[in-house]
C-alpha cells in the first residue's frame, strides 16, 4: 500500500469520494469534540482569551508534517505525488484578507461552520448559507476576476525549496517552533485567566 490513497490527478472516483467522506466525518467529529463548533471559541482567539484555535492549527500542521516526513522516509508515501497548491501572491493575499474578515465576523471557518450547522446551531447554518452564496457569486464573477486570479504566480513553494534546507531540517524547525509557541500560549492563557477574569 502506497499513500496517497487517492491520486489527485486521477480525478475523484467513487472510491476517492468514499475515503473523503470518511475522513471528513472524522475531521468534523474531532472539531466538535474540541469545542470548535462554537463561535465563542474562535472569537476567544481574536480577543486573546482562548488560544485553542492557534494550538489546534499548529498541532494539525505538526502532525501532518511529521506524518509526511516519516511516511515518505519509510517508503510508505510518495511525497512527490502529494498535491501542493501553487502560490499566486497577490490574489491569495487579498483572498486571505477577505477570508479573515469573514472568519472574525462569523466566528466560524468553513469547516467549523459545517460542524456548527450539523449540531443544530443557527449561526452555523447562516454561515454555511453565506459561504454557498459567496461561492456562487465568485463563480459568476470569475470572468471578471480571472486575470487577477492568475496574477503574480510563484509556482509551488515549499519551505525546503524556499530556504534551501533539507525536509528533515525544515520539519524539525517547524516542530520546535510549534512546541515553543504552544508552551507560550499555555502560559499566556493561565496569566489571562488568573489576571483578568473579565
Amino acid at each position, binding site marked *: 500500500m502506497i499513500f496517497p490513497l487517492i491520486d489527485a490527478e486521477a480525478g475523484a472516483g467513487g472510491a476517492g469520494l468514499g475515503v473523503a467522506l470518511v475522513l471528513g466525518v472524522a475531521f468534523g467529529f474531532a472539531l466538535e469534540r474540541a469545542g470548535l463548533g462554537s463561535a465563542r471559541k474562535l472569537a476567544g482567539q481574536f480577543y486573546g482569551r482562548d488560544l485553542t484555535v492557534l494550538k489546534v492549527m499548529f*498541532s494539525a500542521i*505538526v*502532525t501532518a508534517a*511529521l506524518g509526511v*516526513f*516519516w511516511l*515518505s*522516509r519509510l*517508503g510508505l508515501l*510518495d*511525497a*512527490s*505525488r502529494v498535491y501542493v497548491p501553487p502560490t499566486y501572491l497577490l490574489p491569495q493575499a487579498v483572498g486571505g484578507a477577505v477570508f479573515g474578515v469573514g472568519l472574525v465576523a462569523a466566528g466560524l471557518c468553513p469547516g467549523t461552520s459545517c460542524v456548527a450547522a450539523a449540531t443544530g446551531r443557527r449561526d452555523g447554518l447562516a454561515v454555511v448559507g453565506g459561504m454557498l452564496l459567496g461561492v456562487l457569486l465568485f463563480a459568476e464573477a470569475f470572468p471578471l476576476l480571472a486575470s487577477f486570479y492568475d496574477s503574480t504566480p510563484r509556482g509551488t513553494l515549499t519551505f525546503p525549496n524556499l530556504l534551501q534546507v*533539507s*525536509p*528533515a*531540517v525544515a*520539519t*524539525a524547525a*517547524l*516542530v*520546535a517552533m*510549534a*512546541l515553543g509557541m*504552544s*508552551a507560550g500560549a499555555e502560559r499566556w492563557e493561565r496569566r489571562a485567566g488568573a489576571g483578568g477574569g473579565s
Partner: protein
Amino acid sequence: MSASSSGSRTHRLLAGAAAVLAIGALAAGDRTTAGGRVDVDALARAVEAEQDHVTAVELAAWIRDRKPGLRVVDVRVAADYAEFHLPTAENLSLTGLTRAAIRPDETVVLYSEGGTHAAQGWFFLRARGIEHVYFLRGGLYEWMTEVVNPTLPADASPAQRAEFARTAELSRYFGGVPRIGGGSGPTRVDDPAAKLPRRASDGDGAGAAAVQRVRQRGC
C-alpha cells in the same frame, strides 16, 4: 482538577512524542525514494576514479565466482530481456529501478545494450543513496566481444597472452569461443580446457542467435 491535570499530562506526552519524532527526523536525514539529495562532487569523483563501472571480464568473473550479494540488472525492455540476457540477470526498467528495494549489502551491476541507459540508472541508484552500484561499461556489446568472442591478436605480447588465458577460461565457462589471430580464419585456442562442456545458463541456440542480432545492431 484531576481531569485538567490528566489532560495536561496527555498534552505533555504528545508534545514529547512530536519532539522525539522531530529529533529523529534530523538524525534520519532525507533518504526518500522520490527526490533524494545528490552529493554531486562525490559522484563526479567516483566517475573520475573509474569506480562507477566494471568491465565485461570483471563482471563475468563475479558471476562465475558467485560474488556474495551480486545482483545483475538488465535495464532493457522486457522483450529484449526475454530474448537474451546475461546469466543470473533480472529485468528492471529504469523507472522500476528508482523504486526497487535494494539492501545495503548488495552489489548491483546494471547493463543495457550499449551502456548509456545503465550509466543513467547508476546515477539514479546513487542518488537514492545506494553505494555499491556499477554499470557494465560497454554494455552487452562489450560482453559479446570480450567474454563470448574474445580475440587475441596474432602478434600479442607475452603479457597479453597470459591475460588472454584467463579471459579464455572465463569465456569458455560462459559458452564463448576464444580466438587467436585477429579477423581472418579464427583459430581455436589449443588448450585441453577448450573441450569442457559449455555451461552457459541460457539456452545455447537462442542465445547465439540473439548475440548475433545484438552484434548487428551494434551500440
